[in-house]
């Protein structure tokens, strides 16, 4: 008898959950739930004081879960029978599983329920649902909105992570491409160095023989001048002048090729030198001077005013003197070339090309700046300035290696080079060198 009654109790208990969470027919609810039903749902508005309240709550719940495929299971935590088996209390944990927007969700609700035995059957008389942890929606029985919000949050997180991953992959790909390019450049550099060495000798012959032939032409012209002059000697003279011009061209272009080869060798040459404590002001003065006189001795000399502002308190700075002197030469040569362009365009002759050379000592670095008042460099070109073979010099003037080499040399010194420029106003290169000795591996 007691066993039978207990079985009925379990059945009623199961039906009650079927009513609350499943799809127990609404019109049969009265067969399981007492008129005296009271209780609380999972939120404050779900207060039930009568059977009608209960039906209303149920209706609301079922409406909320419309379209949601919800399944439930319950784990019994405790079951206690009281009043000589005429009443029982249960504590259960309900696991509600549903699929919302294609995603699985699980919500746990703890439910206390009270059943009474009356008129030959069990009735649900009281219940209390505990608000699941973390669910904030006080108006939302099934926390569907919470789930949706969480889902959206998760989706956002996933999207964010996916975006991050995509960026990382992009970066990796870019790095990989760069590595491949660098590898190719390194191989190309080695090849270039090899070729440069091989080209140097034949290039020397081209230059030497053209120079020699030019000397001979001059001698022939001298002999020719001693002959009685007539149409034939004049014709010969004209032709020899043309030959001399051609030889000059051969020599000029040969020298150009030679300077490219030299630059390439310089570029590929690993710094085998030694860091030597060097009076940087003296080095700067010497090589600015050398660059100036080189320019004055060139085909297109210009008048340049050179201003020095050298901080004489700078002590010896560790540099590779040969390499670093090249930096000074390159920067000066560029400045002179730029200012020559501007001077050529300046009509009224009021433009005075000026190169300002400064040195400054800061705590850990020595700063050198080379500023010209030339045409300036626009932003697009500024970005490409240190790339090998980038040049704005027309035709035969530049190899496009000067600043690239300059950059490499400064990098070898663990220093930095930066550029600032304003169109038609100035271009300033600033070189920062560490003022203390440190090992560099080159």
């Amino acid at each position: 008898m007691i066993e039978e009654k207990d079985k009925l109790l379990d059945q009623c208990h199961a039906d009650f959950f079927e009513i609350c969470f499943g799809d127990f027919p609404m019109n049969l609810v009265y067969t399981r739930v007492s008129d005296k039903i009271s209780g609380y749902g999972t939120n404050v508005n779900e207060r039930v004081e009568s059977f009608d309240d209960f039906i209303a709550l149920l209706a609301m719940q079922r409406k909320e879960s419309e379209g949601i495929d919800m399944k439930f299971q319950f784990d019994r935590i405790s079951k206690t029978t009281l009043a000589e088996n005429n009443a029982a209390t249960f504590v259960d944990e309900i696991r509600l599983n549903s699929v919302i927007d294609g995603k699985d969700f699980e919500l746990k609700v703890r439910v206390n329920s009270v059943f009474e035995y009356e008129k030959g059957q069990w009735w649900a008389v009281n219940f209390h649902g505990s608000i699941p942890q973390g669910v904030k929606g006080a108006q939302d029985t099934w926390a569907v909105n919470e789930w949706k919000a969480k889902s959206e949050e998760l989706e956002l997180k996933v999207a964010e992570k996916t975006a991050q991953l995509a960026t990382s992959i992009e970066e990796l790909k870019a790095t990989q491409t760069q590595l491949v390019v660098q590898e190719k450049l390194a191989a190309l550099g080695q090849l270039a160095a090899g070729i440069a060495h091989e080209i140097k000798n034949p290039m020397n012959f081209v230059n030497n023989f053209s120079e020699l032939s030019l000397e001979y032409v001059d001698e022939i012209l001298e002999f020719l001048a001693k002959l009685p002059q007539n149409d034939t000697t004049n014709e010969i003279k004209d032709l020899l002048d043309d030959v001399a011009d051609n030889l000059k061209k051969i020599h000029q272009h040969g020298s150009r090729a030679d300077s490219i080869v030299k630059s390439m060798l310089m570029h590929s040459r690993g710094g085998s030198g030694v860091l030597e404590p060097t009076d940087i002001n003296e080095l700067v003065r010497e090589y600015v001077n050398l660059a100036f006189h080189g320019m004055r001795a060139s085909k297109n000399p210009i008048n340049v005013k050179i201003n020095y502002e050298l901080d004489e308190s700078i002590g010896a700075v560790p540099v590779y003197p040969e390499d670093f002197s090249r930096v000074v030469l390159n920067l000066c040569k560029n400045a002179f070339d730029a200012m020559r362009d501007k001077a050529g365009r300046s009509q009224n002759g009021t433009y005075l090309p000026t190169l300002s050379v400064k040195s400054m000592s800061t705590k850990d670095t020595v700063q050198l700046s080379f500023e010209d008042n030339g045409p300036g460099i626009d932003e697009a070109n500024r970005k490409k300035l240190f790339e090998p073979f980038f040049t704005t010099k027309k035709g035969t003037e530049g190899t496009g290696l000067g600043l690239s080499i300059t950059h490499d040399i400064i990098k070898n010194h663990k220093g930095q080079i930066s550029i600032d420029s304003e169109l038609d106003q100035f271009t300033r290169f600033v070189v920062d060198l560490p003022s203390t000795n440190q090992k560099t591996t080159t």
Partner: protein
Amino acid sequence: MKILIVDDEKDVEMLFRQKFRKEIKSGEVEMVFAFSGQEALDILSKDKPPEVMYVFSDINMPGMTGLELLDQVKSRFPNINVSMISAYGDSDNYNRAKESGAKEFFTKPIDFNSLKEEITGMLK
């Protein structure tokens, strides 16, 4: 004065002969050429004592290098002057040559004016 030029590039002969045409014509200078270190040593060993007074040698040559030749010449014919002519003007080569007793160190492309000065300086 008899000068020996050592370089594996054969056109060097034509270049030198033309560059020193006047000096050769006047008989001030006589030039012989060798295209390897071994050939240079053979030439020097041919006459006793050797007629060559000055050797100009390239460094980078197949077989015996110019620096090896320098050592050999200096040990066997200490009275002969040897100067190096190299495309590699780096300090390693320079130091080695100087340590081994090279008189001068010329870099390529050759500055013929300074080379002429060196030779005419020897003539006086």
